[in-house]
């Protein structure tokens, strides 16, 4: 197995008195997709935000390609340029065209010349079923299309890993499919990713490994088949039983 792209060691994070991450250890190899599952409030989003340095951690270390990124001396901008983040609520820039949304990061960070970023943006939008929408504003698109633009935006800068934070939770059920298809395609291309999700079927299908978060701790990890079909820990069993009862699996 190749060396890990991301390594998370003993990460803790509190908001005020509330301990949200309680010593997280997780390692993600190149081309690997890890699905984070767990109830709302279990810390999935916070963990992703900490990895992208959108939140400061209280303790522990996070490594990207073997290099510590949670040291105060590290420039967070250079770290974020090597990672892609997709938000639950898309968070596209409403005052910019779809194409500008996709190219802004690459152009402003100086990662690519404008022409190259534009060409790549157009090509990717086309590939993910958004050809012809380049000049539109985000609010002219459906939720599913907006989320695909957000995926393309994160993917366009060739990140070392994609962090996907509940990318389908804000979508109408009939729009979920296209977004998941886009994620699947990025995974097939070898993109390393961490996927916080409630879509169990999707997690089972796309993820190489599942990590179950409970009250800020990863209580169980393993292949999808192992974690979902024969969970060892009572917390995991309870969580999956509840999802089953709710018709979510």
């Amino acid at each position, binding site marked *: 197995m190749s060396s890990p792209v991301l390594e998370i060691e003993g990460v803790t994070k509190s908001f005020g008195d509330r301990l949200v991450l309680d010593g997280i250890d997780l390692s993600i190899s190149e081309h690997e997709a890890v699905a984070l599952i767990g109830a709302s409030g279990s810390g999935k989003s916070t963990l992703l935000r900490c990895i*992208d340095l*959108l939140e400061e951690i209280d303790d522990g270390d996070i490594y990207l390609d073997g290099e510590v990124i949670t040291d105060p001396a590290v420039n*967070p*901008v250079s770290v*974020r*340029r090597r*990672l*892609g*983040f997709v*938000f639950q*609520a898309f*968070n*596209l*820039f*409403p*005052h910019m065209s779809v194409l500008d949304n996709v190219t*802004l*990061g*690459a152009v*402003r*960070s100086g*990662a690519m010349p404008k022409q190259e970023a534009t060409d790549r943006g157009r090509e990717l939008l086309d590939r993910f079923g958004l050809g012809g929408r380049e000049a539109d*504003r985000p*609010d002219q698109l459906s939720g599913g299309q907006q989320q695909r633009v957000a995926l393309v*935006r*994160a993917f366009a*800068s060739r990140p070392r890993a994609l962090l996907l934070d509940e990318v389908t939770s804000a979508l109408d059920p009939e729009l979920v499919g296209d977004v998941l298809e886009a994620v699947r395609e990025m995974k097939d291309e070898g993109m390393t990713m961490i996927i916080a999700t409630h879509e169990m079927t999707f997690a089972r299908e796309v993820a190489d490994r599942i990590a179950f978060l409970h009250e800020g701790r990863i209580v169980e990890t393993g292949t999808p088949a192992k974690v979902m079909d024969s969970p060892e820990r009572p917390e995991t069993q309870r969580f999956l039983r509840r999802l089953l009862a709710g018709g979510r699996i």
Partner: protein
Amino acid sequence: MLGGLALLVFTSSGWPDVQETFFSPEAFRTSFPDILRAFWLDVRMFVAVEVVVLILGLVIALIRTSLSPALFPIRALAAIYCDLFRGVPVILLVYLIGFGIPTLGVTGILAEPIFLACVALSLAYSAYVAEVYRAGISSVHRTQTDSALAVGLTKFQALRHVVLPQAVRRVRPPLLNDFISLQKDVALVSVLGVQEAFRVAQIDSQSSFNYTPLIAAALLYLAVTIPMARILDYIARKQDSVV
């Protein structure tokens, strides 16, 4: 109702006098060129003050919306600045600065009434405009900044390319309101004896016992403020239609 009111005014016994003292074509013709020349000073002062206000107001707003704990002292200063300069009548400020600074015995531009009046107006309007900008900046959701940082922008780039364009677009109407106020308040510098349009009109009317020059000055102010409002409306509509 308007017709009735007009009828009442035009048939009143005093109307011929009013017509003579306020709407005399002859007095208009003699005083208008002077007032127009003086109005050019108003326009230049307005433009200069407006540029300063747009920049200074933005700087103050950015300080007030900053989150860094290290900036707390200047954040407090900025808040005090806004409270102070919004709380004092503009005319008082023009007086205090226009007569106060020269008393210090300074010379050159610092003793120049036009310059001092512009300083007073800039200070007062920057406080108003800073609050308008601030409202706009706070109305842009925090997730926009997150998103901008996540695509690899620096904090400054996030502000410049993501937050401010949205903020300014949202506060265009109140900003315009303040511009129009400022265009009119330029007349306040007349209290320092500066010969701008209102002052010249006042002198003319006092020497001729006719108020028509004041009407001429009023028309000049309107000739600037109304087209400006329409042009900005037009720009706003054009931009909104692409959003």
